[in-house]
Structure formats: structure tokens, C-alpha cells
């Protein structure tokens, strides 16, 4: 039986943040995640590191937390953050009165807003609509949710943290109103086992209500579904927010060579209601055209959806009416000691949430070590010597990219693979510049069980062709390394391509349609990974 002092439930930003914090304070902790790390909400959002400007008017507290955490994450997570800055732009459709209120509210909580002329804004961002009325600069940034989660785990592991993916909680065990352990199930094998522990922290996000229910406790989490579009272009170099009260389709965030537009907001019954549809995409395009008139001429990569875990003590509050602040619920008040849920909140404030929760847990455990998560970098920088070595093996531009993706330790391991076999230096995914050695390294990690897990760690398959070429290669490569996780390779093909299809289906027109003819031509037409062959020759 596994044992840990604390079990953290949920492998999103909050969960991994708590795991890291606990481990840095010397607490023995294990994290369990129902799917892969960052599978849930932490990878299904804009990837915006908020300045707080978005919340300042309605939720000053959230605005203040954002600007403070924004400053910290730029430093400790610099390999995940692109310091783009942001614009708040008021279009001809937006209320002029709101502008003054917004400037004032930002000033109150310490968010710098610098007005610039529309001409200057359009010089810096030439694709912006000519109909923009006013523009302000704010310290927004872009943040890679996958990488942030993964690097938190890498950091936690250095301090003894353990992670189990594809593991769900099926029971919370207690004795004399005190948590003593939990029953978990491996979703891939169906195997049920126990983890003995003194404390459980539920950071399950949209699933927090379901987890609490296992202990007979009610937590009101209302999953709120948001759909976003990823464009295959850097439409702007900065984050562009619409200067109006928070609403649908207001934010454009550039990430590397792509841009994400979002989001919609709709209350849903199930936390895993994440299939986007064409109608939502068309709506987002309609709204987005107010900021970028040529929006429809940009090629889309995919649409995706996630559910925000909106918490409310009042179960009737929904959607944008519910607070984006976070709450730590100590279920000792509900009669069960050693069980805490953390609900609500935002990606930007995940570290702060983790700190507060870890403080509470440490208080119970009588651990006095202070929190250091704001002081220590998530991953070490690669040394100049290591970078020089990396440049010998990585293809052009690839070394810097890989260094920030992998951190120093991971980079070293990948270079070892490339040294041993020079052909591993080849790009397995040309769209995202991912080498075969990186894919093999990610596949060999103990949290990888399918190609999508490798994708989340490397970005393979996330570029223009959405897996048309690299799916075949990644399946071939992991299989050649004896890493196909006991699965039929045809299952690996289908799992990965179906995952890509989920985001392509709602945008199936234009060049995306063209790309799909190609992808299906390869995998269905040529490789026949789907066709039945059992009654062949009859």
C-alpha cells in the first residue's frame, strides 16, 4: 500500500502548485490525477497571465491578487511566460463611460494602465481594427499552461514529490471523523488500491463537488463551459483585451506562433462537457471581428473548450456572476478532519492558492517551514556550457526552444539520447519543432500512457498539420522503444487523431477541411488503421 502524509487530488495548476509547496516544506506528498497532468481546465483556457485589469472593476480583490502573482510568475516561471504586455482596446461598440471607471479601478489596486494613441497602438499592432476608439497598455503576459504544470511537477519531484496519473478517487476513508486514507482506481488497468494518508487536499477544480460528495460533503461548484479558438497566426504580438465589462470573446492571446481567442461562457451540468461546436466558433468570430476586422481570413487550428470551476456559497450564482476569487474549505467544519477543498480561483493566482492551502495543511501538521514557492525558480536555467552542447545537436532555433520547454535536467537527458543516436535529432514534429529524442524522453516518463500525454509534454501534434505527419512517427517511435504501454498501435493512432479531431470538427471549413482530406487520406485511405480485415478474402 502507498503511503503519504498528504494526498493532493487534481493535476492542474492548483494541484501541482500545492504538491510543490508541500514538498518544498518537507511534507511527504503524492498527487493523483484522473487523466493526464493539465488535462482539465489548466490547459483549456486562454493561457493569459492576467494583469488583473479584467477583474479590477467588478472584483477588486481578484484584480489585486492577479497583479501580485503576475509579478511573481514572470520571475519564477519565466520559461513558461512570454512577457508580451497587453492592450485594453475600446471599440466603437463599447460604452465610453466604462473606460473611466476601469482606469480608476485599476489604479486603486495597483495595476498600471498607460494610455496610448490609437495611431501608436495600430503602429505596434497593425492588424487592429481602424475603428478602435482608445487603447491602454497593461502588464498582461502569455503563459503556457501545459509547461507551467509540468515544470511545477519537475520542481516537486526534486523535493520528493510523487505523481500518479490516470488515477481516480473512488473512496475517502476516515476513522473517528479523521481522514486515514483513500481508495483509488487506475483508470487504465481498472486496478483498485489504497493510499494511507493523514490529509487530503482536493484541488479537483470543476470536479471538486464530485470529490467532496465521496465524503458526504456538499461543495457548490458550478462548471461553466468556455469555448476558445486557436488561430495558426500571431495576429498580434500583445494580448488584446476588449475594454468593456467582462463578456464573451473579449481576449486574444498570442502564444509562440499562434493566437487564442476566447471565450464563451455557459453553465453546464458536467465538468467534462468539453466538446466545442461550430455555432460557438461562429459566434466567437463575430465578436472577435470588432477588434480584428480581418479575423475570418486567418486560418484556424482548432477550437477547444474547458469548464471553469465557479464556486459559490450560494448555489444559484452562475456564469460571470460568480466570483473568480478562491475559497479554501476546511471540511473539519463539516465534521471531517484532514480534508480540505480549494475551489474557485484562476490560473494566474494558482501559486497564491497553493500557498494558502499549504499554510493551512502545515498548520495542522505542525510544520513550521515557511513558503518559498515565490522565491525559487520552477526549473533551473540551462548553463551556458549545456546550451553550447545543445546547439550542436538540436536543429536550427531548436536549442533555445527545447531548453525552455525541458529545463536544465530534461535538456541534458534529451542531449544524451541525441548523442547516442544522431538520427534522433531529426524533427518528428516539424510544425512545433519537436525532435524524436524529446518525444522519446517524454514518452518514457512515468506519467505517459498514450501519445496525447506526450503531446502535452512536448507540443508535438499541436501545430498547423494537427498530427497529419507526426502521429505516424510518434506511434512508430514509442513502439520502437518498447513504450507502447501494452496497447495495440492502432489504438494509439486512433486515440491521438480522435483527440485532434475533437477540436477540428467544429471548424471544418477552409484550409482545415483541406487538411482533413489529407489526414484521412493518410490514416484511413493509405494506412487503413480503421478498416476491418477480419472477413478478408471471403
Amino acid at each position, binding site marked *: 500500500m502507498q503511503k503519504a502524509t498528504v494526498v493532493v487530488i487534481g493535476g492542474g495548476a492548483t494541484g501541482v502548485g500545492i504538491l510543490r509547496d508541500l514538498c518544498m516544506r518537507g511534507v511527504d506528498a503524492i498527487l493523483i490525477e484522473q487523466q493526464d497532468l493539465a488535462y482539465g481546465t489548466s490547459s483549456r483556457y486562454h493561457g493569459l497571465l492576467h494583469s488583473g485589469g479584467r477583474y479590477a472593476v467588478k472584483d477588486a480583490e481578484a484584480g489585486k491578487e492577479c497583479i501580485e502573482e503576475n509579478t511573481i510568475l514572470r520571475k519564477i516561471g519565466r520559461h513558461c511566460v512570454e512577457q508580451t504586455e497587453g492592450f485594453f482596446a475600446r471599440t466603437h461598440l463599447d460604452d465610453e463611460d466604462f473606460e473611466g471607471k476601469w482606469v480608476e479601478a485599476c489604479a486603486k489596486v495597483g495595476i498600471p494602465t498607460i494610455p496610448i494613441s490609437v495611431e501608436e497602438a495600430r503602429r505596434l499592432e497593425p492588424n487592429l481594427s481602424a475603428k478602435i476608439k482608445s487603447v491602454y497598455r497593461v502588464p498582461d503576459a502569455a503563459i503556457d499552461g501545459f509547461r507551467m504544470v509540468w515544470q511545477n511537477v519537475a520542481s516537486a519531484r526534486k523535493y520528493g514529490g510523487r505523481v500518479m496519473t490516470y488515477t481516480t478517487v473512488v473512496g475517502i476513508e476516515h476513522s473517528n471523523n479523521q481522514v486515514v486514507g483513500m481508495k483509488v482506481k487506475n483508470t487504465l488497468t481498472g486496478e483498485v488500491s489504497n493510499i494511507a494518508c493523514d490529509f487530503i487536499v482536493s484541488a479537483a477544480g470543476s470536479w471538486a463537488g464530485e470529490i467532496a460528495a465521496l465524503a458526504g460533503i456538499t461543495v457548490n461548484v458550478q462548471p461553466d463551459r468556455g469555448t476558445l479558438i486557436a488561430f495558426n497566426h500571431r495576429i498580434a504580438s500583445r494580448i488584446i483585451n476588449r475594454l468593456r465589462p467582462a463578456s464573451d470573446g473579449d481576449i486574444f492571446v498570442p502564444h509562440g506562433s499562434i493566437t487564442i481567442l476566447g471565450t464563451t461562457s455557459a453553465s453546464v451540468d458536467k465538468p467534462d462537457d468539453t*466538446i466545442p*461546436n*461550430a*455555432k460557438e*466558433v*461562429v459566434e466567437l468570430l463575430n465578436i472577435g471581428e470588432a477588434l480584428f476586422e480581418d479575423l475570418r481570413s486567418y486560418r484556424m487550428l482548432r477550437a477547444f473548450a474547458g469548464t471553469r470551476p465557479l464556486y459559490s456559497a450560494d448555489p444559484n450564482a452562475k456564469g460571470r456572476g460568480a466570483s473568480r476569487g478562491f475559497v479554501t474549505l476546511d471540511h473539519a467544519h463539516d465534521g471531517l478532519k484532514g480534508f480540505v477543498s480549494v475551489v474557485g480561483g484562476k490560473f494566474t493566482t494558482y501559486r497564491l492558492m497553493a500557498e494558502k492551502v499549504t499554510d493551512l495543511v502545515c498548520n495542522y501538521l505542525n510544520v513550521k517551514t515557511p513558503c518559498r514557492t515565490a522565491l525559487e525558480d520552477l526549473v533551473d536555467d540551462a548553463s551556458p556550457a549545456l546550451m553550447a552542447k545543445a546547439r550542436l545537436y538540436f536543429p536550427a532555433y531548436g536549442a533555445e526552444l527545447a531548453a525552455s520547454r525541458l529545463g536544465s535536467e530534461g535538456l541534458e537527458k534529451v542531449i544524451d539520447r541525441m548523442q547516442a543516436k*544522431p*538520427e534522433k*535529432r*531529426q*524533427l*518528428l514534429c*516539424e510544425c512545433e519543432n519537436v525532435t*524524436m529524442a524529446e518525444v522519446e524522453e517524454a514518452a518514457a516518463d512515468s506519467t505517459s500512457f498514450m501519445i496525447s500525454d506526450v503531446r502535452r509534454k512536448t507540443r508535438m501534434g499541436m501545430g498547423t498539420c494537427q498530427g497529419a*505527419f507526426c502521429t*505516424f*512517427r510518434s*506511434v*512508430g*517511435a514509442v*513502439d*520502437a522503444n518498447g513504450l507502447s504501454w501494452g496497447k*495495440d*498501435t*492502432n489504438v494509439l*493512432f*486512433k486515440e491521438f*487523431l*480522435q483527440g485532434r*479531431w475533437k477540436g477540428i*470538427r*467544429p471548424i*471544418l*471549413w*477552409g484550409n482545415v*477541411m*483541406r487538411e*482533413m*482530406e*489529407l489526414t*484521412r*487520406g*493518410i*490514416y*484511413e*485511405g*493509405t*494506412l*487503413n*488503421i*480503421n*478498416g*476491418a*480485415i*477480419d*472477413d*478478408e*478474402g*471471403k
Partner: protein
Amino acid sequence: MMRENDIIVIGGGLAGLTAAAVAAKRGKKVMVLSLGAGTLTIGGGIVDVIGYLDGNKPVATPSAGLLQLPAEHPYKKIGRPAIEDAIKFFKEICEEEGYPYMGNLDTMQWVPTAAGTIKPTCLIPKTMNTEELQKANKVIVLGFESLKDFYPQLITKNFKKISRFKDKEYETVMIDPNLAEGRDVTALDVARWLDTEEGISECITKMRNVIQPGSVVIIPPVLGTRPNYRIADRLEQALQCHFIETASVPPSITGLRLRTMMVSYLKKIGVRIVEQATVAKSIVEADKCVAVITEGIDRERTYYAKSFILANGGFYGGGLLAEPGKVIEPIFNLPVEAPEDHEMWANYSLFSNEAQPFAKLGLEVDEKMRPLDADGKVILNNVFVAGRNLRGYDYSFEKSGNGVAIASGYQAAMSV
């Protein structure tokens, strides 16, 4: 003054090239306006006619499959005799060009793929013949170090699960073509290496070290870039082995050979091929097209002809353009019926036992391949449609792509 063409073919994929060949053989003056190779360089070296019906059930032979198709399918309009003639015509070209294909409508050929599956098809180059494979007790799968698009163990492992291949002994071997210096290696690089005298000699030497005479060897499609069997014959003689090429991911070398062969044949029979020609619009008078207009960086050009064959590849080739809830045929503005609700275009499962609705969208035609309006009336009397622009079939799902291309290209050219 430019002499007017009898026929202008729009599209340089297999449908367009076949149509041009048929029309030229009938004594017409033909010009092809081509923007690219279509799907020929994707998986185009094999001619699938029909492999699966609804429910994803494999058919015993292409002939049997043809009988069971619904009325909306292009093959139903073309009819069995024309399909047979088209295949005969195609095989004659291959024969004449020194790159004969094997197969007929009464035999299903199951060819090995690079994913370790097998796929049903109809016409294949001789290098994909699996007769020896079926007889062999021991099979070698040979890969090339650094070729990132071929993984021998995918084939050996999966073949052990296929009933007709499971009772064999499999071995994987690798040879190093020494091509990895600083860049990525595709099957095209290996094929070009084998095209050279030094390459093939070196390859033979390396193969001798790892394979025994008398072996059946499965390899990626790398047996030369040219449409002939010289590389294959040379290897087979030197090593006394039988080589079988697999259906693979792009770049498809077998498809490249097929295109090279078709283009060579067309040039011999006097067809003019204009490359990089983007046809943007047409000049239509009453129920006839007078000319089409190409767009270039520098200027527009007008091409006149008595008849036109539209074979520019559906959504992939740009012959059809999809918008939310709408499909446009950009050159003649021909009508395409499509569900207004975009959610109806595609299944939730990418690969299942159903065809994809979007893949079946396209132009409605009569038996002569002339475009029809919603009332079933011919819209343009001298325009004929071929290949992927046609509605009513999902080539990936049913495995029929090049078969429809050849048959409809043939039918269109015969109808002119």
C-alpha cells in the same frame, strides 16, 4: 493567334491526367491546367477501386463491391463497362511506359502498409505484389536508419495479429544509408540514393550483410523515383530476394512514379501541361463555357476551348471551398447541396464504421459527368466533372480514391 483547344482539363491529379490521356487518344487537342500533383504524391501509387461498404464491411472483390453501391455513388453513374474500359486503358498506359500494374476487378489485393495493417486495393505496381509474402515462412522487414517515416517493428508486431500472416516468422533488420548529416530523411531521399549507381551498389553490399538469399523482404517504398522496375529487378537479382514495397505516409514514392509516368505519356501524345495554373473563373455564355481565366502574380490569362473537364480535386485541391454551412464551387459557381447546420457535416468519431458526411459533399452530375442543378437539369453542356469534385463517395473510408479518379476521368473524356 493561339489555336483553340478542343478540351481544357482543369487539374493535374490522376483524374485530370487520365481524362487528358483519353481525350488525346481520341484525337482531341488537349491542354491541362495544373496547380499540383493532387493526391498522387500522398498515397497515389495504388489504384483502390472499392474496398469497404457502409458498416465498414470489406467486400470480397471490387466487382462484388461495385454491385452493392447506392445509386448516388459516382460508379453507379459511370457504369460497369466504362469502369472496365477505364482500367484497361490505364493498364495499357502503364504497359506502354514500361511500368506495368497488376490487378483486376475480380481480385482484391491486400497490400501491406507502413502501419502494419493491410489494405484492400485493386491495381498495384509489381513491387507491391504479395504472392511471395503469402507463401513465405519467414519474412524480413527492412528499415533504414534515420528514415523517420518507417518503423519495421510496427509491421512485424501487427502482422502477427493478422490471420493470413500470423503463422510466419518475422525479423527486422536495419541498414544505414548514411544520409542523416544534419537534416531530416524521407523515403524520397532513400529512393534518390538508390537511383544512383553508388547508392544502389552500397545498398546491395549492406543488404548482403543482413539478409539471406531467398528471403521475402518488406521495405518502405524506396525502389527508385522513376516509373520502371529497374531498381527492383537489380536488387532482386543481386540478392536473390523478393522485395515488397509498403503503402506509406507522404511523400509517396509510388505516387510520384505514377505521376511521372502519366506526365511522360501525355507529353508523348501531344498534351500540353501548364503548371502552376490557378484557374479562378470562367466565361460562360448561355449553357456553355467559352473560356477559363487563370490568375497569376503578374497577370490573368484566358484559355479558350470547346469543352472543359473540371478535375481540380474537391476540397483538397481547391475545386470546392467549404464555409460554415455552405460549399462553393469557385470557377463555374456550380451548386453544391450541403447541410446548413454545420454540426451535420461530420461525425463525432473520426474513424468509425461510418463514412463522413462532409467527404460525400460535391457536385451532382449525370451519366456523362455533366453538372446538374437541383432539378436534375444539365447546367453547362460542355463542362464535365471528374474525381474528387463528385458527390456521393468517401474515398478514405471506402478505399476508392484513384478508382473513381480513373473511371470518372475516362467517362468525362469519352463524353466530350
